[in-house]
């Protein structure tokens, strides 16, 4: 067997980005959550908000550090393993990646120092402001990266000369057709992922009777967020799907596991895709539901994969299964969010052992959904890096041998398998110490402020 540098480069990309994406999936949401907590601490003067913020800021510091180091790897991957792609697309994508570095990374990295170490050194308003800047930085970061990714999916605003892309209209490039849907769908996914982690951690602390006040507040805040965001995310997902259907019909057919074009369209719940024979084996289908859900009409249909040339089809199995995992997780998430509200109305939220245990078990679901969603959209884009224009096989660095990439991939696997489990163990240790364990005396809110402002806290609102 010969080692194929193309296949190994793709595996290497999958490996480094799959680990990396877990961190923004968490830190984007967590940064906004910390900014809200810092705001509550600043405006209400209640120490409990500062305590919760300090607790999550500690966890944020670890995950952000891991995000920075695994993020530095990413732009260099484009050069080391995908140099033909770099040369062809950099006129268009280069400045957008550079803007990501400029606007976001610096904002995060510089203000993060103040957020983490500066409680005693800067006035309280500045500490709050640093929290806001870190949160804004993560959202800018997401904006540019997803704009780049969306352009690769739905390119526009360029012309091609000598096999290279040249920009014509930056507005059209940045706000390409799939970008708004992808951006909001992703940010929402990141917020929901964080929401479930906060919910799970709160439930764990409450079940062990540690930091119960703070844990209750975490659970309440998370449930309030999730009951709004989870249903909203389902609507956004549907809109995103309609956009994919319009601009990437071959990807959509792969996601739905549709090899042929039929009318009316059934919905394929499950099956074993067989790309070689071009059919779905053991398919479980519901008649007409496909027309209704996917085209929003009783008799609509989508183009099957057989209407696309064989060398322009994605492999069906990864997007087909990944999409079903993502949707399945969405259903579980909706159940948790609704059940939480029902228990709360009945006043049984904190005493319901099964629900708290459920919250713990569902804490990592957001991460799985993010990876599944990413697999759906990225494998669904194959065999292209720039949809319909530049093939993945023509993007890889020509000087690489299979042995080169086998060596580098092994080293990435080795280092990441040490780094990520240790990081996760670490964050778990911070959680185990509880909220009190993470708070530096004196509470942050006092820093740099005259005492009286703190001595008279706002009256505690009645608990629920």
């Amino acid at each position, binding site marked *: 067997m010969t080692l194929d540098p193309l296949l190994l480069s793709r595996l290497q990309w999958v490996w480094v980005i799959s680990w990396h994406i877990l961190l923004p999936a968490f830190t984007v949401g967590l940064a906004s959550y910390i900014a809200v907590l810092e705001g509550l601490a600043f405006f209400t003067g209640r120490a409990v908000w500062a305590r919760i913020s300090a607790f999550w800021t500690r966890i944020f510091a670890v995950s952000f550090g891991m995000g920075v180091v695994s993020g530095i790897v990413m*732009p260099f991957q484009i050069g080391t393993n995908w140099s033909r792609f770099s040369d062809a697309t950099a006129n268009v994508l*280069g*400045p957008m990646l550079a803007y990501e570095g400029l606007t976001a990374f*610096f904002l995060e*990295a510089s203000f993060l120092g103040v957020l983490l170490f500066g409680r005693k050194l800067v006035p309280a308003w500045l500490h709050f402001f640093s929290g806001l800047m870190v949160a804004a930085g993560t959202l800018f970061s997401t904006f540019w990266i997803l704009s780049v990714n969306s352009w690769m999916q739905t390119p526009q605003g360029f012309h091609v000369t000598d096999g290279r892309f040249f920009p014509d209209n930056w507005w059209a490039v940045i706000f390409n057709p799939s970008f708004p849907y992808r951006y909001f769908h992703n940010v929402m996914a990141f917020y929901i992922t964080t929401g479930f982690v906060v919910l799970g951690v709160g439930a764990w602390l409450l079940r062990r009777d540690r930091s119960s006040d703070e844990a209750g507040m975490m659970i309440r805040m998370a449930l309030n967020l999730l009951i709004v965001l989870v249903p909203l995310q389902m609507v956004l997902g549907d809109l995103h799907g309609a956009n994919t259907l319009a601009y990437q019909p071959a990807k959509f057919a792969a996601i739905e596991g549709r090899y042929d074009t039929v009318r009316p369209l059934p919905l394929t719940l499950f099956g074993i895709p067989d790309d070689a024979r071009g059919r779905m084996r053991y398919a479980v289908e519901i008649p007409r539901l496909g027309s209704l859900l996917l085209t929003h009409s009783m008799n609509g249909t989508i183009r099957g994969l057989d209407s696309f040339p064989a060398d322009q089809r994605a492999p069906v199995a990864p997007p087909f299964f990944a999409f079903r995992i993502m949707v399945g997780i969405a259903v579980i998430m909706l159940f948790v969010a609704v059940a939480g509200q029902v228990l709360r109305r009945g006043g049984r939220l904190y005493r319901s052992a099964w629900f708290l245990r459920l919250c713990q078990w569902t804490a990592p679901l957001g991460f799985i959904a993010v990876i599944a969603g990413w697999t759906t959209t990225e494998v669904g884009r194959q065999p292209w890096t720039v949809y319909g224009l530049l093939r993945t096989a023509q993007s890889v660095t020509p000087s690489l041998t299979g042995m*080169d990439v086998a060596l*580098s991939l092994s080293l990435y696997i080795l280092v990441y398998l040490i*780094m990520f489990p240790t990081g996760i163990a670490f964050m778990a240790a911070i959680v185990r110490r509880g909220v009190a364990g993470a708070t530096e005396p004196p509470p942050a809110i006092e820093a740099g402020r005259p005492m009286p402002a703190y001595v008279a806290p706002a009256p505690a609102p009645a608990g629920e």
Partner: protein
Amino acid sequence: MWHSLVPIWTVILGLGVFIYVSLDGFDLGVGMLHGLVQPSQRATVMNSIAPFWDGNETWLILGGVGLLAAFPVAFAIIIPAVYFPILVMLLALVFRGVAFEFRFKQARLRRLWDWAFCGGSFFATFAQGVVLGSFIQGFKVDGRVFTGSSFDFATPFTLLTGVALVFGYALLGAGWLVMKTEGELQAWSRRAGRVSLLLVCCCIAAVSLWTPLASSVIAQRWLGWPNTVLLLPLPVLTLATGLYAWHAFSRKDAWQAFGASIALFAWSFLGIVISLWPMIVPGHFTLWEAASPESTQAFLLVGTLVLLPVILFYTGWSYWVFRGKVHQSEGDEGY
């Protein structure tokens, strides 16, 4: 692509690389020295760079994506040509970054993380030196594609530049520690700085002799008439800076040793620029030939001219907030 933005981008990228080398240079240097100081003083050493290191590393990303955006073909040739040095640098930076976070929180494995931090700093530095050496020695290119092997980087010259950068960053790190610490640790940093200074000067001399011997273009640039006379101030300035640095490492308590070390880097950087100008892929592409189209450079320039001063301002501000000496008594983490 003969357009007028190329000189502006050359200056911005040159400045970006220099800022990266100065800032991450000192914290990588501190990382290497950290392995050599007494274990009891390691926390102080770490604390001296705690608020800065991740901000410093973001300049590396700016350098990488800035090169990609402004001079795409240079990025597409150089980065694959140094495939393994880049790999080692990235993995070492990952290790180092993680070790930084973890050593504070995991007392049990502190020695292991200390080793990872020191080793990561060393390998990242050495790999950057090898990248620099490979860049100076040039690449095999056909059209717009690197056609050599992924092991072309391994030559005696790149070994020398790798070692040179290790001593160079150690010098910056020692200068930083003289500025940020007191007492025994500062005295130790003074000695480490003077040793690094001697070694780094030997390396600068070796590279300065080697490059004109290896390349007739570079020899002509430095030794042809009247260039020799016009360029003479640079070696003189370098020598004078080296002598002042020795004095500062022996006597001065504040920023002088660190400042002199940075100046030494500036003169070396200038020397490399003079040797290679106007090539961005030596022997194949000039800056103008490698440039992206005007609309690409203009689009990025608009935001850069607004954001870069802001970034420089608050980078400076965050250094100001955490100014002054670090004290050992203030606990494990923070100032």
